[in-house]
């Protein structure tokens, strides 16, 4: 999706767009190439939004619409949390909140051979990487990084998993660390795994701290940084 266009970014950048908004008019742009990401589409000489969200621009020429949604559209190299749904001879069927069930090949584990296929009961929670995500095909997952190492992927034991939105996941993964995690991290010790598909897994020493962290994260979705701080402080006080 490359198009000749001017280097001048659209006036909509970092603004809210809704489906149908004309984001760029190609006729007004001089020779240049732009790259379109998710949520945008070309219609004759215009680029229009097809998702509600904030239009983002990255230098030199990338545009995409960032939105928060409950379902997940698989994208290669995303790290997600999946739930095992069924076991077949060659694949584990994994639910990643996407439009189709994802396949995790039984050999896609560090040092995986036919002889040491792991046994997952239905409902097992996995931290996995999306390897292939093509339309019309079931996405393919892997429990290895690009170098064939486990590096943290695989089964998540115990803890508590809750589902929120993709926007919240991105917030939690953003750097610098978002205020909620920052404050919680100072006061409590816990493990957290965030999947880009909106699933978050938390584990800690005691159930009460896990519940506190989980609820603090869920509450923080619509709050600003300062509000997040206040909310977390309040929660911590109530517990102590």
């Amino acid at each position, binding site marked *: 999706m490359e198009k000749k266009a001017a280097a001048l970014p659209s006036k909509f950048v970092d603004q809210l767009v809704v489906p149908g908004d004309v984001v760029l008019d190609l006729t007004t742009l001089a020779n240049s190439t732009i790259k379109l990401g998710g949520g945008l589409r070309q219609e004759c000489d215009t680029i229009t939004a097809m998702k509600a969200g904030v239009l983002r621009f990255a230098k030199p020429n990338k545009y995409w619409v960032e939105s928060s949604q409950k379902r997940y559209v698989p994208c290669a190299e995303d790290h997600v949390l999946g739930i095992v749904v069924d076991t077949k001879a060659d694949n584990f*069927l994994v639910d990643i909140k996407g439009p189709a*069930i994802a396949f995790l090949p039984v050999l896609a584990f560090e040092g995986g051979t036919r002889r040491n296929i792991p046994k997952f009961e239905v*409902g097992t929670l996995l931290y996995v990487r999306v390897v292939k995500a093509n339309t019309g095909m079931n996405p393919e997952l892997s429990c290895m990084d690009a170098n064939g190492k486990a590096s943290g992927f695989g089964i*998540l034991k115990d803890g508590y*998993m809750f589902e929120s939105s993709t926007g919240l996941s991105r917030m939690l993964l953003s750097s610098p660390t978002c205020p909620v995690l920052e404050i919680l991290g100072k006061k409590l010790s816990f493990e957290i795994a965030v999947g880009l598909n909106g699933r978050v897994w938390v584990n800690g020493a005691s159930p009460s701290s896990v519940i506190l962290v989980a*609820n603090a994260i869920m509450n923080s979705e619509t709050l600003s940084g300062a509000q997040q701080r206040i909310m977390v402080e309040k929660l911590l006080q109530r517990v102590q």
Partner: protein
Amino acid sequence: MEQRLANTWRMSVNDKKFIESSLLSDLRVDGRRPFDYRKLSIKFGREDGSSEVQLGETHVMGFVTGQLVPPYRDRPNEGSLAIYTEFSPMADPSFEAGRPGENAVELGRIIDRGLRESRAIDTESLCILSGKLVWSIRVDLHILDNGGNLVDAANIAALAALLTFRRPECTLSGDDGQEVIVHSAEEREPLPLIVHHLPVAVTFAFFSNDNVVVIDPTHKEEAVMKGRLTATLNTNGDVCAIQKGGGIGVLQSVVLQCLRIASVKAADMTSKIKDAVESYNTVRAFRKVKRHSAPIAVSVDGSVAIKKQSQDGAQKIEL
């Protein structure tokens, strides 16, 4: 097959284990204590007899309508009350469109038993003409969002809607006293139903560990629980209905303990419902608008006339 796998909501084993193990130390995943209800809000529509109840994430709408019909043959002097439930696939992917499923039927029956068999609504005052014409009250309960514990939310919605419902006043006239006049709302103030007491449903969930009992389970807790008990009580300390339809066995002493807790909770809920209804009534009194229309007189002689009458009655109420 694969589509079915992709579209059903499922829970990870981690969550199941976590919910159960944290309940052992009296902790619930949403931060409540075992015998706390979620936040309850009761709203009313513009029209009389409609309510909207939100209990945590659970969202239920209640709608009451009345119709003039011939009575049942075995009860010529009593009006009737019927409960209809609608589980829309919108509320939960596991609900299927079309015929009501088992759970919808059970929900309707629990509420029906609580309200009707305990005679909470005075049905005798709904009789207009003995053996010929009575009011039939229909309560429609629509589940809009399933966040767990539909029974309690639906029961509150039904009560709130019934308390704010008003039926047109009817008088008898004519030489033989067989003529029924349905007065419009402008002419005579519509009458509220006579409600003797408020049976409030309180639901408990039991888990595989014997000693764990919680009130008002959420959707996730319902997926883990092994049994459920719904007790319907009123403020006089009367048990109006109980439903524990199988599931894990519990000791008799636990059942009785649940009933005592339920009776406290029922009093709580009753006052919340009454407050909401009162504030609605104040608002309603301010809102009164005068309208003009003539009364309709229909003579009731035979069955054909009765049918016609009942249709008229229905139309009136929908006005």
